[in-house]
């Protein structure tokens, strides 16, 4: 084969097609609320900001997430377990003027990892934006999961950079539980991105 088609930046003008919300006249089934009425598990909300090297908000990023359901099952043929609900595990959000994004979803369960090890609950993240010729891959882990200590992927990350992958629990009353996950594309405390 002649090789794969190169990636190109998503650019600044994707919103009318990819994240139209109520602002544009286009129906888009992919959105930032992943919860289906039949999905079991803990309802959570993930909130965060996307920031550049100056700590300035990136107001034209698109964040996509991919995750297992509460029992650690992926809605995909390669996972032989398969969820028993309509929960797809995929979501997409644009950032606002302050660089904020959010997702309403279900806390994922632990998933099988390499060499028979369990992976702690986590969510895959792809970051797209003007200025990124290809999207960047990272992962969200959860601060309140004991399994993080034995997670085989976190173990590959230098210890001092691991905190950039851990969403912190926002302590306030009420449901859903909020987890905060900021994405620093560059500079101090740059988020860990993966070569996959």
């Amino acid at each position, binding site marked *: 084969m002649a090789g794969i088609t190169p990636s190109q*930046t998503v650019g600044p003008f994707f919103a009318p*097609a990819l994240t139209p919300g109520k602002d544009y006249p286009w129906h888009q089934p992919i959105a930032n609320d992943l919860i289906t009425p039949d999905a079991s598990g803990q309802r959570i909300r993930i909130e965060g900001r996307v920031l550049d090297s100056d700590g300035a908000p*990136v107001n034209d990023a698109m964040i996509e997430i991919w995750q297992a359901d509460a029992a650690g099952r*992926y809605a*995909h043929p390669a996972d032989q377990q398969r969820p028993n609900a309509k929960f797809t595990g995929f979501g997409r959000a644009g950032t606002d003027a302050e660089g904020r994004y959010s997702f309403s979803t279900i806390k994922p369960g632990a998933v099988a990892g390499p060499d028979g090890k369990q992976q702690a609950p986590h969510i895959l993240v792809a970051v797209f934006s003007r200025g990124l*010729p290809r*999207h960047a891959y990272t992962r969200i882990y959860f601060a309140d999961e004991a399994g993080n200590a034995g997670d085989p992927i976190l173990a590959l990350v230098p210890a001092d950079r691991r905190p950039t992958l851990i969403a912190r629990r926002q302590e306030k009353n009420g449901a859903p539980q909020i987890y905060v996950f900021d994405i620093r594309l560059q500079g101090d405390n740059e988020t860990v991105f993966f070569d996959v």
Partner: protein
Amino acid sequence: MTYVYPRESLSAFSGHLAPAYKSSIKRAPRQPLVIMPHTLSELTGPVYGHNDVQPGDNDLTKQHEGEPLGERILVHGRVLDEDGRPVADTLVELWQANAAGRYTCVVDQHAAPLDPNFTGAGRAVTDADGHYEFLTIKPGAYPWANHENAWRPAHIHFSLFGHSFMSRLVTQMYFPNDPLIPFDPVYDSVPPESRARMISSFDMHATVPNWALAYRFDIVLRGREQTPLDND
């Protein structure tokens, strides 16, 4: 079917930093990427198909009361994996500027007219042979602030999914013989040997007589079928 995603195939991509493309300077990650194995999380991905597309989603010329201005074109091609096999039933999303080079997106302030009959968004699903098709209008070139008198060549944005989260692709399709291509740092962000894969070909055979010209754009996504020799 089990797929593998050889890392070497990514040599067709730009790195995160492409300094001539100025927006990348403050946004591209600079720390070394952490190399990791592909787990079940990476080897799975969203499955979108025919239920997610409505009739007419792939015809950008019929989304409003009237017809958009511009040169009608059919844009079609096949979505393939790295073995050259068709990627069937996969979602293809598309967006673009209008014939005057203006996007409906509110952040686009180019002093060219909006077209009330053109949103510039489309969606299609590939058939069993990996084929997709859109009817749209040819987008215009437009200026941008990257450098003095910078103009983006006419292009159409594509978003594809494929077999897993590893095959996810956002790219841009260009038109053959566009004189602006050699001056475009976005096009140039890609390694030289891979750039031409982003240029569509004029397809006389697919033109619609008395109606529309046609361009062909085949897209190759990451992913090969696993063979017994692949053992990672």
